[in-house]
């Protein structure tokens, strides 16, 4: 017997990200929701019955993990019903929340419905700074929510999105996580799509900030501060090679937008050439195996050089398709994060700009997209 193995089948998804709504009380300037999240199509949210059917289809497709996300999923009053359906299907459920809408009654109801795990995002270790990024007063509510989750004995993940304005407080952030008795911590360097890409010059950290952060994370891991560990999402702009998108396009995960479009990852709607199938018209099984969008960048056949002849072809699959599109205009190009990409200079230039002292104002997430967003200077 050789213990456990990673005997994952590659052709069925393990994770479903259920984006129940794009509505949210927060206005973070790096929100991963689409720039046009306020448009009519996203307001046609799936009905409870649609989601209940999707949960069953996901289970038959091989999904093991379901993340109820958003926007703020607690804005859906039928969340309990969906959590209960996930539990009935044996899916492991996570609530991914900003934490501001928690009440003791609702949290207990969710736990009793079978919720397995809660992830709460906090923007910074200090109230003023956290509220400034969230664009609304929310810090104290988040701490209260975290305590509530612990009091109900649910496992707690705390998630911090990292950027230039909070990286210098990484030690304080880790201290806050210890104080709140997080079982698990996610420290996610900002990924530059949508809102974050628009705010890139204000958010991109310096190399020195990242080096100090990596040391702090390594020390916290060494001390075993958190029983289930720390997930550190790398700042890919400072890496030599790109990341595979969610473990590879159409390989491990799928995301469903509030109106039912099924995407290979949450931000894939940024790729205009792709048409996404909708759960109102197709089964999840068909969408995963047969739909054009899921097959477009699956595997390695579509890849051209410098990736096609690269030994890392099966490691990073050419990197992130959305990043390739956003930075080169071509979704099938090599992710410019790779130092071998002919467009890599665009990353280098962005990095060099980040070393400059002056940081531009942040544009907050708003209904109007990026053009008339309210400006706020930190």
């Amino acid at each position, binding site marked *: *017997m050789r*213990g*456990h193995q*990673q005997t994952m089948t590659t052709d069925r998804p393990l994770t479903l990200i259920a984006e129940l709504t794009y509505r949210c009380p927060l206005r973070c300037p790096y929100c991963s929701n689409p720039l046009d999240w306020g448009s009519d199509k996203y307001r046609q949210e799936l009905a409870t019955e649609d989601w209940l059917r999707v949960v069953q289809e996901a289970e038959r497709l091989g999904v093991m*993990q379901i993340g109820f996300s958003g926007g703020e999923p607690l804005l859906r009053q039928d969340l309990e019903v969906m959590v209960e359906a996930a539990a009935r299907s044996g899916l492991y459920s*996570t609530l991914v929340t900003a934490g501001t809408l928690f009440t003791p009654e609702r949290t207990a109801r969710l736990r009793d419905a079978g919720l*397995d795990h809660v992830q709460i995002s906090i923007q910074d270790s200090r109230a003023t700074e956290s509220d400034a990024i969230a664009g609304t007063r929310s810090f104290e509510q988040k701490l209260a929510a975290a305590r509530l989750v612990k009091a109900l004995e649910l*496992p707690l993940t705390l998630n911090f999105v990292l950027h230039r304005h909070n990286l210098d407080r990484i030690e304080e952030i880790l201290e806050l996580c210890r104080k709140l008795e997080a*079982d698990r911590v996610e420290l996610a360097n900002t990924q530059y799509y949508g809102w974050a890409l628009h705010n890139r010059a204000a958010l991109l950290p310096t190399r020195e900030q990242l080096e100090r952060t990596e040391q702090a994370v390594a020390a916290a891991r060494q001390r075993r501060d958190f029983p289930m560990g720390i*997930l550190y999402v790398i700042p890919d702009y400072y890496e030599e090679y790109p990341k595979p998108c969610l473990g590879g396009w159409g390989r491990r995960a799928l995301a469903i937008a509030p109106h039912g479009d099924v995407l290979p990852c949450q931000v894939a709607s940024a790729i205009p050439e792709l048409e996404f199938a909708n759960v109102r018209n197709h089964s999840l099984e068909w969408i995963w195996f047969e739909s054009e969008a899921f097959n477009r960048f699956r595997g390695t056949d579509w890849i051209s050089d410098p990736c096609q002849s690269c030994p890392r072809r099966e490691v990073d699959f050419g990197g992130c398709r959305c990043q390739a599109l956003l930075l080169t205009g071509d979704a099938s190009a090599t992710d410019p994060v790779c130092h071998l990409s002919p467009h890599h200079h665009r990353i280098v230039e962005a990095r060099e700009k980040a070393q400059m002292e002056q940081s531009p104002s942040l544009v907050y997430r708003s209904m109007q997209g990026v053009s008339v967003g309210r400006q706020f200077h930190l």
Partner: protein
Amino acid sequence: MEEYTQPRFVRGVRLRWDSVRRQHMLLFPEGALGLNATAGAVLELCDGQRTMGAIITELEERYPGANLRSDVHDLLSRIAERGLLRYETIPE
């Protein structure tokens, strides 16, 4: 010492049979670990009731001739290292 140690999953960790992939899966926050048949058989016995000794005896009956003790310890300690399993001790 095995007589007094009961391995159990911490809250938020679940073992389930995956009828699509036909294997046991260990589910935990943001993760799923596919298990081979023997690892699945070991973890199924980690119910917080059975002691280490009882688990090993039961497995030795099921897989006669195999030297399981070190493999079982190895598997469980790797899962415990990830914060997914705890050893509870019954007072002697």
